């Protein structure tokens, strides 16, 4: 694909996203204790789609995850999500969820993969990150029988009650599922009816989206790719995109929490002066500040250049440390508020819950670190 974006385009596009976030999104989420009603979330996502921030099924989609071959494409997408998340991480995640199937359908060259209503792409299998089998597969190493069994069961579990959990606004009608066919990770389009979707109630964070548990089934229309090398690349790219999304949303979330903590520290007096003057509070804010600065640099690094599946190891290595840092920053920012940080109307507890939720999705820091060790060993 030819290179289309320049720095100025990216800044202009991000300026528009910022206006949308600070305008329409912000006015809908002023009360963190009341999660956004479903219809408002849908309305916002529609506006974002119309504005071109999220791609749709049209011939010429624009927005999230569209220009990934462009050197500045990953930056634009990641910073778009970060900007949205700095106002509301749940809405940012919903936008990412909406964009993923469009990316995948385009990448597989199967436009018919998209559903009538909504489609989702669950990437994490039933538990963990496929242990050492996944890095071996993605690095093109020889797979043992156990590795094959692991990949198969991880993506489409044999255990009857093992379910994959999807975090997305409920109401989707089809699922693009990865599965391991004994040789490669390929894709299948599954009607929701085949997956016995089970709403599993509230989750730790991302209140704006639902958690739906999907039963295991191999029913559906295969989407390829046929070529094993291509299949490997597509799955690695999907995982890399998800990593970018998780870190970008986490960074936006922490930026917001850090800003609120700064304001609180300025306004609140204890010990005879503004708490901003207490070294105890400075340490807390400094911890949030340094987490923002470090993860900001890491996100730059992750989104540097065109997106390539071969960088999935680096992406995972970064995520493994970025999420604990983001959670540390969020919990320290909350602590600046003392007791009011624990109350839902202040918004800090939500930021902490969201940060923790993001840490646990798509592979935990421990899963990611072990992936990296094996990836580096075999590649």
């Amino acid at each position, binding site marked *: 694909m030819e290179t289309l974006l320049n720095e100025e385009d990216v800044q202009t596009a991000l300026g528009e996203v910022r206006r949308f976030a600070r305008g329409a999104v912000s006015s809908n989420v002023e009360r963190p204790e009341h999660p956004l009603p479903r219809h408002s979330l849908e309305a916002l996502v529609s506006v974002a789609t119309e504005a071109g921030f999220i791609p749709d099924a049209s011939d010429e989609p624009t927005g999230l995850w569209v220009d990934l071959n462009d050197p500045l494409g990953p930056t634009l997408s990641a910073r778009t999500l970060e900007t949205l998340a700095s106002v509301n991480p749940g809405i940012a995640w919903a936008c990412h969820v909406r964009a993923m199937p469009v990316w995948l359908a385009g990448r597989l060259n199967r436009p018919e993969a998209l559903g009538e209503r909504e489609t989702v792409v669950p990437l994490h299998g039933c*538990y963990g990150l496929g242990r050492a089998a996944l890095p071996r597969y993605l690095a093109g190493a020889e797979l043992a029988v156990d590795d094959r069994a692991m990949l198969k069961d991880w993506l489409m579990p044999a255990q009857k009650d093992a379910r994959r959990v999807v975090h997305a606004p409920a109401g989707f009608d089809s699922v693009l599922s990865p599965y391991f066919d004994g040789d490669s990770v390929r894709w299948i389009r599954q009607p929701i009816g085949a997956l016995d979707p089970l709403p599993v109630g509230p989750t730790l964070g991302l209140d704006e989206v639902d958690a739906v548990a999907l039963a295991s089934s191999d029913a559906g229309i295969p989407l390829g790719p046929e070529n094993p090398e291509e299949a490997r690349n597509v799955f690695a790219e999907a995982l890399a995109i998800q990593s970018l999304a998780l870190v970008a949303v986490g960074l936006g979330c922490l930026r917001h929490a850090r800003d609120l903590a700064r304001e609180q520290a300025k306004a609140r007096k204890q010990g005879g002066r503004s708490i901003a003057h*207490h070294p105890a509070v400075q340490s807390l804010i400094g911890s949030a500040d340094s987490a923002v600065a470090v993860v900001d640099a890491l996100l730059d690094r992750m989104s540097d250049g065109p997106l390539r599946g071969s960088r999935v190891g680096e992406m995972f290595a970064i995520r493994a440390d970025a999420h604990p840092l983001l959670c540390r920053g969020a919990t320290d920012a909350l*602590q600046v508020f*003392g*007791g009011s940080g624990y*109350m839902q109307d202040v918004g800090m507890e939500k930021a902490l819950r969201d940060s923790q939720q993001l840490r646990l999705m798509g592979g935990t820091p421990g899963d990611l670190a072990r992936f990296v060790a094996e990836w580096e060993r075999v590649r």
Partner: protein
Amino acid sequence: MTPQSHLDGFLSAEHPLSPRGLFANLPAAIRPVVTPKLATVWEQDTAALPRALAHARRRYRGFAERELRDRSLAADLAPHPKPGEVLPSLAALLKTAGREGMLTDLLPRPLGSASLGSYRYPLVWTQALRSEELARVCGGQMLLLSAHSLGVIPIVFAGDLSAIRRFVVPAYRQTMAGDPHLFAYAITEPSAGSDAEEGHGASVSQPNVVAKRVSGGWSLQGRKIFISGGDIAKSITVFASLESEGIESWTCFLVTNDMPGFEVVRNELKMGMRASAASELAFHDVFVPDDHVIGSPRQGWAINRATLNASRYAVAGMAVGLAQGATEAAIDFACRTRLAGKSLMDFQEVQLQIANMMTETAAIRGMLWQAARKAYVARQDRSSMCKFQCTDEAVRVVEMALELMGNHGTLHESGVEKIYRDARLTQIFEGTNQINRLAVIEDQQEHFLARIERN
């Protein structure tokens, strides 16, 4: 399915190299020394307690399993009731807890429900065991039951026998008869949170709740915030400054919820511990008769500090219980979840994580018990050390449990995300963990000053 003889990476107990079998072949004289009985950590710890406390610990666990377990997730999800209302299932819990003596154990039988045997050991130790066992099953219900005791402690610590006889004993009697009469403890004000927990801040703080002298008593004016159980308590130990004075004049007043001018303004929407409300209380010229002053006027700050020194052990106990609950949930998950034909418990990374969680929990329990077993006098430095160390470590343990369960841990039904939300509070209340660190230094101040002097 044939039962598994050993976990992956380990030898079965029957294997010739397994210590269990080998120890049995050692000479009879040495065998008992090197062959411990097969026992869970719970059994080992309980057996290490003095008999009266071991009995209490088993009773607390039995109560928590029987009464709290099934209510836990539903009570967490239920919308916060309006001030003064209690969810029917929690109202039933309070009645049962009252009848079973779980709300009256600060006084010995027959005035309360504590066994005389337990009085041979520091009260804070028993209270820490209690909060651990209750929090292990449900943080919110634990707080509902424990905030009440916090409200009673100032009356006990004022050493005011008349107040104990007039206020605590009848309330305990009513409670043990199945009609719970709850207490709450009110120090925090909109302008004094940490300042109500720490001397230097208090010395420069502007009081919000003020008591004005009137004929026959005092008139209270102002607001308290974040008061656990303040919405349903019938009696509240309220700390107020005397007119035109600072916190050094703090006086503890026993305010009852039927006193004209007392208002529960609202209940907060909290992150966790949701079975217990945190309430804002307003005092609109509430008349409090002289005989409702606990201790003497101006003794409030001392009573408050003594109360916190004692109650911070119980907060550390909560943290241990929450860590224990998370560890057990993670173990359950690892034992019932299979991946590629194996139980998660067979994977080394899972085994390592579980060993970490068990050990960190044992470490904080050990720290707490070690401090509490000597706490006939509740020391500020020790109680604060236990409070911040146990709560910080407990949150880390819960994070490990979440991480072990991954995406599944984030689901409400897993119970662990709730433990995380509950545990986060323990780092904030009874003095933030920052303030508790400073409390350690304050208590050791003389020693540091002496060293500075020497240098």
